[in-house]
């Protein structure tokens, strides 16, 4: 099987007066694992349905391999969907659910048997062939939905939050399986999720959506490390947002002053000049924390206000001397060997590298 490239050009979609999609543009390469990530109600499902042909855009175009498909109805489009609730046919067995599209194509009984068995092996559903959907677990239903969609040999597989209904552990497992499956079948996957961890762990590229608009497209690394705006910064992972004013500008770095923090340096990833008001993002795991004074340009002193032990790491909320509360994640590398374990109410020193903060908003001063 070979995937198609998918292109979305200036797609708008209205439900009555409500604009669900606003000038959406996307380019998805053939065979890639592409994620649409965004909060509930931002239009992910709507966009997916437009790609599937179950919904029509009010304007704009959808192209598969460079050819417009908007006039092709869903039953003729070479895309298949894993629905948010799987939408298995309740009256058919697992076998017949998977065989559904094959029977429509009037394949011979032998061919059908052979193909369905192959798919059942692929999604590891051996022995469940004769069960009805209602007799399956959530994870098994999801696998049936995948097998049923793949049976039709689509060039694009559309997955609408396929693991969100499952418990955390199973979710991780199935996500990995989906990733493997993607490598095996080689078709284009468009994966919708509101869970940033899912999106960044499996995708080649991620489009972050908000209020019907695409706000950033990039590799998982790019959207996590250099978020385009405040929304992306806070939606993907956790972060510290700091409002600051530029007091000095160098070639590479700037000096800023922030309420609750004081003066510090940061990397000049956007064009700014003296007097501008900016918004900075700084990931909690990028900050070093210690009970002993730390070296570095951006060093501050504070008190641990709260401590949340998570097993592999501890989250600290440190109130700096000037009042800002900084979120810090400290990984536990060596048990008891690191240094004195930091606890609630301890006085601490924190520091971060100026390269690790990013400017997400600039307001000209």
């Amino acid at each position, binding site marked *: 099987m070979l995937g198609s490239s998918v292109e979305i050009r200036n797609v708008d979609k209205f439900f009555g007066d409500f604009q669900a999609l606003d000038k959406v543009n996307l380019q998805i390469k053939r065979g890639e694992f592409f994620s649409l990530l965004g909060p509930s109600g931002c239009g992910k499902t709507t966009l997916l349905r437009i790609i*599937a*042909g*179950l919904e029509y855009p009010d304007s704009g175009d959808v192209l598969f391999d460079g050819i417009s498909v908007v006039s092709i*109805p*869903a*039953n*003729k489009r070479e895309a*298949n*969907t894993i*629905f*948010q*609730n799987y*939408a*298995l*046919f*309740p*009256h058919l067995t697992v076998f017949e659910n998977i065989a*559904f*599209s094959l029977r*429509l*194509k009037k394949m011979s009984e032998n061919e059908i048997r052979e193909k369905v068995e192959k798919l059942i092996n692929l999604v590891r559903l051996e022995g469940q062939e004769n069960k009805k959907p209602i007799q399956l677990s959530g994870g098994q239903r999801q696998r049936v939905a995948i097998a*049923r*969609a793949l049976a*039709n040999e689509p060039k694009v597989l559309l997955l609408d939050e396929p693991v969100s209904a499952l418990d955390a552990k199973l979710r991780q497992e199935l996500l990995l399986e989906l990733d493997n499956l993607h490598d095996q079948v080689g078709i284009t996957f468009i994966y919708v999720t509101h869970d940033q961890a899912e999106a960044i762990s499996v995708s080649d590229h991620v489009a972050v959506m908000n209020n019907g608009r695409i706000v950033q497209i990039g590799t998982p690394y790019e959207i996590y490390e250099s978020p385009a705006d405040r929304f992306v910064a806070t939606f993907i992972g956790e972060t510290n947002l700091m409002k600051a004013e530029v007091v000095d500008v160098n070639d590479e770095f700037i000096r800023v002053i922030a309420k609750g923090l004081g003066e510090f340096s940061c990397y000049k990833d956007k064009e700014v000049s003296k007097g501008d008001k900016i918004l900075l993002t700084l990931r909690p795991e990028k900050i070093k924390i210690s009970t002993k004074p730390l070296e570095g340009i951006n060093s501050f002193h504070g008190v641990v206000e709260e401590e949340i032990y998570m097993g592999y790491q501890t989250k600290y909320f440190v109130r700096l001397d000037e009042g800002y509360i900084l979120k810090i994640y400290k990984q536990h590398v060596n048990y008891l060997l690191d240094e004195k374990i930091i606890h609630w109410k301890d006085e601490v020193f924190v520091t971060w590298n100026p390269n690790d903060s990013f400017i997400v908003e600039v307001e000209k001063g």
Partner: protein
Amino acid sequence: MKYITAYTLWLVVFFVIPLIIILSFSFLEKTPYGGVNFSFSLEGYKSLLTIGYLRILWRTVWISIISTFITIIFALPTAYYIAKSKFKNFLLLLVVIPFWTNSLIRIYAWIFVLGNNGIINQFLKLIGLVDSHIQFLYNPWAVILVIVYTYLPYAIIPLYAAIERLDNSIFEAALDLGCSKRKAFFKVLIPNIKAGLVASIIFVLIPAMGSYAIPDLVGGVNSKMIGNEIARQLTTAKNWPAASAISSILTLITLLGVIIFVKSSKKEVLN
């Protein structure tokens, strides 16, 4: 548990006991002025074995089956449309509005519409399409028309309930997997609303088999159904055992039909 007991009591008082009375009357002797003599007799049944009765019986069966079929054909798309509509509550209200009017009045309304001096004929005369009139009433098709009209809501409601309960996404999944809308209707919709379909058919077929007022008012002499015969035996002929015997046979036929129908549709659902 309490409800089940109450329901059982209800069934016994208003259904089982009357049925037993009718069944026993059918095996008794008639008296010339109605009522029965309490001595055993098969006269009630013997009078049924005439060609006239068999013809009426057969007519009752075919009129009922055709009416049910037509009713379902109309009810299915209507129920589907209502279930998918934004205004389903309003549309459901429209479906049940006829229940607010007495059914006899509604049958008379049809006479007013279809009669030889009815609205349609007057209109046809007005535009010069006919000279005097077209005979719409007093044939089996008029009976079928009014049965369909009367029982359509009974068929729509269980179908609506079944379709409304269905997850629309299975329909979309069918389209997504290559079905045309028509194929999706037969391959996905119908099998998943079988219970509603069975209920609808039963809700129409049973009362249609027992029709009395409709053939009486719009059927004329050549469209009499079993219900009319029961009434005639009970009133003008004053033959209660015969009336009871016809009723018993009608109940038996209906019951057998329903049992066979439900059994066979269950089997299909399981396969």
